[in-house]
Structure formats: structure tokens, C-alpha cells
């Protein structure tokens, strides 16, 4: 065994240039896969974070009917805010429970009318969830007893409103009677997410409750945990206690349904990239087998079994794959970790997307040791796999005929 490894190692250096070329193509593929995987992870991570902040929390509670008719935002389907739903907080180390009212309106200024989405929020709690206090670009953040709104930048621009102006919201209450309220524009926020900045405004929950006739009630309850991987367990626990409610952990939110699909699709793509890159190894091994057919005949005549010959040649292929993989991992990891801190500016893209897949204006790559190691292993595996076909030929060579060529 040791001898075979030794032979493979020596053979690696017999034609250094050729080995290097094969190494480089493996290295490039491994680096590309690490980069692509980190980028995808960073991007889906950004989408998941945004969906948690804006839509789903770690766990979201609504009535079942609200979930079913969510597109209509039925205000009649609501939950009490006081006292908050009594669930066992120790179950998942809850860090925040916030109530929101979501309602659709037409906002207008002069001849411009825009469909918009209004949120009644608890400003203090939401500072830790939505984090809009840090995203105010003009004016100030909300206070709980304000009769004011903060508008997305795109929405403010389109309506031609500035700080101190009055926004008139006309809507219907939960009991379907017409209602309206004059609200002062207190601040303008910018999340960099085009769909949100263009069509969403936030107002204090109390003002929203008053306007919509929802005293001490809200349409959704958002729960934030210390550890989000506990979301499912907590959701199950709450479901047991309140079977009549729709309790949804963030990963089951329809907006995030694509994440799992994207992951598996891209794994297949990575593997194809690897196979293509490693086909240079197949060619290399093929040439090696031809070049060394006399030598192979010789060692066979000397009693080396075909298994050992295959082992020796595959060992050489693995060596090429490993050397390329190490270099590729180093380059890919260095590049990805650098971009993890620096980020890639995709504001062009993120500002034009709708609110369905909200990813931020800057994507920070999210490389992990697992991603790097997986890419390395994938490269090594693909190298040996593609080498197998040409190598098998060598083992079937007839020693007598091979030797005749000397």
C-alpha cells in the first residue's frame, strides 16, 4: 500500500507541466464553487434575514382565516395584544414579542394615487426587529404616542412629501366603516429594498388601532428568539396550546419556499462544473496510460495485480485533484472571506426587485469552513471519478503485448 502511494507520488512529478495544468483546472473549479456557494449562501441569508425582519419574525402568529385570506389583509381577523398570548417563554428563549397591524390603503397627493401597505408597529420593540431607527435618512424615528408616519424613500419621493408634511390616510375600519387620519410625516427611511421603500409606511400601533377600530388588538404577533433554530420547536409548542391559530416558523413562510429548492439545484450545478473541470484529468490519465503501457506491462509481468495498478494510477489522479483542491480552496476561501467583509454592491438589482425576494443592496458572502471543505472533497471525488475510465484500460493491457513494444 505504502509502495503504491510512493509510486503514485513519484509519477506525479514525471511530467510536471502536464500535472500542473490539470491541477490548475481543478483549482479554478474548486475556487469557483467556493465563491458561488458562498455568494448564494450570502444572498439567501440576506433574503431570510429580511423576510424575518419585515414579514415573518422567527415565528408568526395569526388566525387561520387571516393566513388563508392574507392577500386581502382582513382586519376582522385579529388577535388580542393584552394580555399577550400566554405561551411558555422558556421553550425557546424569546427575546421579543411584537404586535403588528398590516393594512392596505391608497395614498394620494394631488393627481397621484399609489397603492401602499401600512403597518402599525410598536416603535420601541421594533427597533430591535425591523431596525428602522437606524435606517432613517431624514427626520426622526417614531415614538409610541405619535400620530405620525415614517415613509419609505421611494414612496415619499413619489408622493412628493417631506418631513413635517401631512399624509392623509383614508381607509376602512375592522368593522368596515370608512375611516381616516391625518398623520405627520416624521421621517423617511431607506432599506435599499426597492419593493419596500416604494410602497410601505409605518405608524405607531396605538394610532393604527385607533384609526382601524382595533382597540388592544392586532392582526399578527411576531416572536423573535435568541436562537432561531428553535423556531420550529416553539411553533409546535404554541400550536399545541392554541390549535385554532396559525403559528408559522419562518422557514415555513411561503416567501422562503424557494430557499431549499435553490440549494439542491445549485449542488447539481457545482458537480457539473467540477466534472467539466476535471475532464482535463481524464485526458491526462489517458495520455499517461498510453505513454506508460510498456512500463505497465513490465510491472504486470513482475507480478503486480491489476487492482494495484489501478490503485497506483488513481492515486496519481487523486494527488493531482488534491493538490489542485488545496490551491483552489485557499484562493476561493481567501477571496470569499475578503468579500464577506467588503460585500458586493448589487443595489442596481435590489432596487428594482419587488418585495417578494427582498435582498439587500450589498451582498456579503457567507463562506464557512464546511463550504470550503465540501468543495475540496467534491473536487477530489470528481478527479478520481473521471480518472477511473481511462485507468481501467491500463489494467486490461496484456503484459506480453505491452512488453513486445520495448
Amino acid at each position, binding site marked *: 500500500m505504502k509502495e503504491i502511494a510512493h509510486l503514485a507520488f513519484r509519477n506525479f512529478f514525471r511530467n510536471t507541466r502536464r500535472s500542473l495544468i490539470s491541477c490548475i483546472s481543478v483549482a479554478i473549479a474548486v475556487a469557483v464553487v467556493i465563491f458561488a456557494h458562498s455568494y448564494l449562501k450570502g444572498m439567501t441569508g440576506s433574503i431570510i434575514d429580511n423576510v424575518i425582519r419585515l414579514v415573518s419574525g422567527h415565528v408568526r402568529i395569526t388566525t387561520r382565516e387571516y393566513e388563508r385570506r392574507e392577500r386581502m389583509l382582513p382586519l376582522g381577523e385579529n388577535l388580542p395584544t393584552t394580555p399577550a398570548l400566554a405561551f411558555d417563554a422558556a421553550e425557546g428563549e424569546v427575546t421579543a414579542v411584537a404586535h403588528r397591524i398590516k393594512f392596505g390603503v*391608497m395614498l394620494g397627493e394631488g393627481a397621484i394615487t399609489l397603492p401602499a401597505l401600512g403597518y402599525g408597529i410598536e416603535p420601541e420593540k421594533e427597533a430591535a426587529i425591523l431596525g428602522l431607527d437606524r435606517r432613517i435618512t431624514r427626520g426622526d424615528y417614531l415614538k409610541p404616542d405619535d400620530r405620525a408616519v415614517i415613509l419609505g424613500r421611494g414612496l415619499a419621493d413619489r408622493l412628493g412629501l417631506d418631513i413635517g408634511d401631512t399624509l392623509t390616510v383614508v381607509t376602512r375600519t375592522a368593522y368596515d366603516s370608512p375611516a381616516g387620519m391625518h398623520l405627520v410625516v416624521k421621517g423617511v427611511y431607506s432599506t435599499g429594498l426597492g419593493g419596500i421603500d416604494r410602497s410601505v409606511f409605518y405608524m405607531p400601533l396605538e394610532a393604527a388601532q385607533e384609526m382601524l377600530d382595533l382597540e388592544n388588538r392586532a392582526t399578527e404577533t411576531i416572536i423573535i428568539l435568541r436562537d432561531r433554530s428553535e423556531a420550529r420547536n416553539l411553533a409546535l409548542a404554541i400550536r399545541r396550546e392554541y390549535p385554532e391559530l396559525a403559528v408559522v416558523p419562518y422557514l415555513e413562510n411561503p416567501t422562503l419556499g424557494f430557499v431549499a429548492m435553490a440549494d439542491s439545484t445549485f449542488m447539481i450545478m457545482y458537480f457539473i462544473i467540477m466534472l467539466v473541470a476535471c475532464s482535463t484529468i481524464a485526458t491526462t490519465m489517458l495520455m499517461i496510460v498510453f505513454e506508460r503501457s510498456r512500463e505497465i506491462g513490465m510491472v504486470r509481468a513482475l507480478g503486480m495485480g491489476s487492482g494495484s495498478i489501478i490503485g497506483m494510477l488513481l492515486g496519481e489522479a487523486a494527488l493531482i485533484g488534491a493538490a489542485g483542491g488545496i490551491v483552489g480552496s485557499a484562493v476561493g476561501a481567501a477571496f470569499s472571506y475578503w468579500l464577506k467583509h467588503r460585500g458586493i454592491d448589487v443595489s442596481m438589482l435590489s432596487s428594482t426587485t419587488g418585495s417578494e425576494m427582498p435582498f439587500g443592496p450589498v451582498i456579503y458572502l457567507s463562506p464557512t469552513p464546511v463550504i470550503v471543505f465540501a468543495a475540496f472533497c467534491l473536487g477530489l471525488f470528481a478527479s478520481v471519478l473521471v480518472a477511473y475510465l481511462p485507468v481501467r484500460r491500463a489494467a486490461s493491457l496484456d503484459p506480453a503485448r505491452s512488453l513486445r513494444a520495448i
Partner: protein
Amino acid sequence: MKLLSMAWRNVFRHTRRSVITAAAISVGLMAMLAIDTLLNGTDQAGTRNVMDFETGQLVVYANGYYHEEGLLPLDTVITASESLLEVIRETPGVKAATRRIKFPARLTNGIDELPVTAIGLDPDHENEVFRTKAAIVAGDYLADPDGCLIGVPLARDIGADVDAPLTLICRDRNGTHNAYDLIVTGILHTAHPLLDRSALLVDLATAQELLSMPGEATEICVAAGSDPANVRRLQAALAHRLRPGYEVYRWDELSGALFQVTGIKRTCGMLVGLIVFIIASVGIVNTMLMAVMERIPEIGTLKALGFGNRHLVAIFLLEGAMIGGIGSAIGTCLGVIVSCYFVFVGLDFSSMFQGQVMDLPVEMVFRGDLSIGTAVLVFLFGVVVTVLVTLIPVRRAMGLQPVDALRHI
């Protein structure tokens, strides 16, 4: 001729290897053709949907109306719409023209309320430009001022069937809120998901009254036939004639999002096809390399017998071309078969995206659109690339000296 028969014979010296190589080429080309068909089909569907229901070929706006997508200002509108319509209709090349008013509104059934984009249309001329009437699947076309048409998914969401009463709430051009009771006269299925999901079609006169816009319209949609060159020419002619008060846009200038997406899709799709084909090409290189290596003694003999390099290259290239040709032919045939499946049956992605709503004017059932030109092109591409990559290993063989080569025996 002799070279040809030698090459042909050589193809069958290693039948299994030749078959594998040809199969690799087949799969590559089949993938390319099928992907192209599918992409073409979705593009076509998107294009048709936009033209048939949203824009026609050209749209005339008042100058300054269209500066941001989705913003529908009611103060920059076509005031004397009737007389402008006459001017447009008289322009040579205009097949038909009709007026519309687009405005954001909310639709309610008394319990639930939904945001919609309301479109006021002229029932008498609408169908000269659009296919609205043909898309009605239940009930009737607009007949009286209180009627409205809604898409199947909107009808489902708001729980309304034909003859159901609905209320439209909107802001008029002065910002005054207004409500109007409507009766659903017909349900539409346009295959344009955005429209079906969130458009409400009402009579132009009703919209004018509701919005305090008598005699006005926000846009005039023009039918100009399907020839893109004609459409461009007419766009220039109309723009010149209606200057400076009006602007003329082509349908594809108004659906930026659609074409951004198709662009990305096309690139990704072609990339996948290309990757598959590169794999196939590597297969060819390997096969020919093996063929060359194996036949070194033979090459030496032929050289010693006086065969020139040109003849030897020709033999190998012909062999490559034959394998490539057979593979390409089979691949193209398979591609056409798969494409026909896409064309006649379609791929249903709706279950994959259930609940997810994409802002695209195509349904999640993708149908292909196969062009014979592409099939021929793909076949030629396969043959040419095969011959080209065969050159790589063959060049090695040509460098051999006859003596060296013969020594291999």
C-alpha cells in the same frame, strides 16, 4: 473517395466508443435545442400577453406622463382624447386605435378589499387592438356602464362570480375619494397573470365620470401589425406628427422588467447548454486522441506508403465529422421530439411556485416555441465544433516521423 471509405470504416473499428461519443454529442445538442425552445416559448408568451392585453404595439401618452413605471398621474393626461384618436387613426400604418384610462383603485365585496389596477376601456373599439373579448370565459362582455370584467384569480380571491355586486373605491384627479357600485358581467382568463390577478376592466365613460375626467384618457393604444420594422417606422412617424404634446412608446419599451428577466434567463439557459456541450466536446477530443494514439503504427505505415499529412488529417477529420454528424443528427431529432413535447404539452411549474406570485406576464405553465432554423443551426454547430475539436489531437499525430511511428509496431 477512398479517404471517405477509410474514415467510414474507422468509425466502426471501435463501435462502442463511437456510439458513446456520438451519444454525448446527441445529449449536448438535445439539451441546447430543448432549452432554446423553452426560452423562446416563454418569451413569445410574454410578448403576446403584453401586446394582446396591455399595450398593443404602440402607446401614446401625454408628454411627461410616463417617467416612472407604476406611477399613474391623472394630471398629465390626454385631454382632447376624441380628436387625438381621430388624428392617430388617420395616420397611415395605424390599423386601429383605442383609448384607455388606467388608475389605481381598491375593490371590495363588502368584507374583503383588494388593491387593483382599474382600466377604463372603450367597449366599441377595445377589441380592434386587444383580445379582451376573446378572453372571457364566463358571462358577457361589457354592455352597460355599471358592468366590469375581472380575471379568474381575482374573482376567486374576492369571492365574486358573474352578476356579483362589487364596489370600486378610487381617488379622482383632484384627490377626492369616490366609490362606485359595479356588477361583474364577465370573468377573464388572459394567460397574463398580472392582469388576471389584479386588473379590473370597466367602461371608459364610467372611469371618466368617476375620476372627473370627461372626454379624457391616459393613453391611446395602437395596433400596428406584427412586423417590428413597421412598428418602429410608425413610432417615429407618430412621434413626429404628435410632437410636442405627446409621446409614443413601443410595447417593449414599456415592459422593461419582462425583458430584463428574459435576458437573465436566456444567459443562464445558454450557459447550461454550453456546459453540457463542452462536456460532449471533451468526449470527442478524448475519443479522437485515443484513435490517434492507437493507430500510431498505422499512421507510420501510411506515411511510409506515401500518404501526405493532408490525407492523414483528412481521414481523421472525416472520422470526427462522421461521428459528429451522426451524433448531431440524432441529437437534433431527439431535441425536436422533446421540443414538440414542450410545444404541445408544456412544462407545468405552477406546483413548484404554489403560493409564490411572480411579477411576470407569463403563466407558470411554460410552452415551447420551436423554430426549424434553430434546429438546423444546432445541427451545423454540432458538426462544425466536432470537426474543430478533432483538430487538436490530430495535430499531434502529424508531428510524428514515419520511422518513429513504425518503431511502435
